[in-house]
């Protein structure tokens, strides 16, 4: 349980980070909060030649509203995000999700960008961010590109981020008008990774017609997964508990759950529908005037 040898750079700027990653040619890795990378190093699942520490890069920390986006810089601690009034006000779903992430000891170090970079298919921050139509900005020596999360998650712990890129921020579009949100999960103990989780957003027009419906499931596919067929059924109609329940069968068709020591695939599908119903009902309850 001791990491293999590596070199270490304490970076002071994003320029320095991307230069190191570029020179590292796939052998360099970024450490932020270290709550995932340190165990991977200790178990030697990761054996980088160079670890680039971004904890002291001031431009990678902070939460701000710019134009029609809420921006969370990559190295923002989960504990700071959980306590942020800006996040509570503008993206309450994310606050609900982070309450399920780890424990105080891990949230005090773990970062929002780290969770999105690691991309565990059962982790809460990627699930909430996907549900909120967020995007990430990725920077390399060649410049910055913005990737929608719909195109970012490629599979378990696999993303569209190249080895020479660092995730610098996650961008959440601000929505006009009242929005309801819901987040539910099943885990073995509070703070563990979810076995299955569901995140939902609903917004209604003044006449009660559903304007926005977003539902995503975590832990039941190789990556967090939006359930587009269910969203399509709800959007544009007047929705109630019955309408939500009758749309739930759409979930199973969008997921290919794996089996592990926690649960088999059939259990995950069953629980996904139950958690989705709870999350959608919470969201509807908040959205209704």
């Amino acid at each position, binding site marked *: 349980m*001791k990491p293999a040898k590596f070199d270490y750079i304490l970076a002071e700027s994003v320029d320095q980070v991307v230069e190191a990653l570029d020179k590292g040619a796939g052998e360099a890795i970024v450490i932020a909060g270290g709550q995932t990378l340190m165990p991977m190093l200790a178990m030697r699942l990761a054996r980088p030649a160079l670890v680039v520490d971004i*904890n002291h890069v001031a431009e990678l920390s902070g939460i701000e509203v710019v134009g029609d986006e809420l921006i969370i810089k990559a190295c923002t601690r989960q504990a700071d995000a959980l306590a942020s009034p800006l996040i509570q006000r503008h993206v309450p779903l994310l606050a609900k999700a982070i309450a399920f992430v780890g*424990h105080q*000891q891990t949230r*005090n*170090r773990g970062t929002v960008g780290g969770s999105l970079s690691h991309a565990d298919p059962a982790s809460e921050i990627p699930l909430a961010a996907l549900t909120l139509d967020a995007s990430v900005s990725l920077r390399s020596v060649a410049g910055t590109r913005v990737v929608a999360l719909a195109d970012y998650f490629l599979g378990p712990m696999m993303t569209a981020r190249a080895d020479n890129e660092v995730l610098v921020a996650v961008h959440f579009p601000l929505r006009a008008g009242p929005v309801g949100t819901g987040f539910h999960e099943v885990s073995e103990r*509070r703070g563990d990774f979810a076995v299955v989780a569901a995140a939902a957003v609903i917004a209604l027009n003044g006449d009660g017609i559903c304007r926005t419906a977003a539902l995503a499931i975590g832990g039941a596919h190789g990556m967090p997964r939006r359930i587009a067929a269910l969203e399509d059924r709800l959007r544009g109609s007047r929705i109630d508990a019955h309408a939500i329940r009758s749309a739930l069968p759409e979930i199973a068709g969008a997921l290919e759950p794996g089996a592990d020591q926690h649960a088999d695939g059939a259990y995950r599908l069953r629980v996904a529908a139950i958690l989705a119903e709870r999350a959608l009902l919470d969201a509807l309850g908040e959205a209704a005037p």
Partner: protein
Amino acid sequence: MSKLAISLTINGRKRGGLAEPRLSLLDFLRGDMALDGTHTGCEHGVCGACSILLDGVPVRACLLLAVQAEGCHITTVEGLCGADGAPGILQDAFIEAHGMQCGYCTPGMLISAQALLAENDDPSLEQIKDAIGGNLCRCTGYVQIIESIQLAALRLREGPS
């Protein structure tokens, strides 16, 4: 890569040392600083036995590199004692209310409880459970641990007798 110099403050004292980049803060504290009150448990961030306060907030020492503690203020379980080395209020409460069985998780439990009580000297049961939620006790002595924290909170509220 050669060893890097680290200077930091541990339990109120300026300390320094040299560490390979791969050395965890936990191994640095126990091996190099001879502070073995912080326990080595799972070494991958699950059990909480190695909890310390880093600039006042609880973190897992096994999930930090020693070099990342450069310039930081660290409190280990040794730092919870009074100036004379006698147990502090929290430690006394653990002794009195049987807050330990084998004692392996105890340093981490004490650190988590210390962080809680520093912010809130009248925590609810749920708040206590949340604060120690990241600390595993394999003796499953959680009830007595919670009672110990409640006793310490009571004594903190009552003030020095």
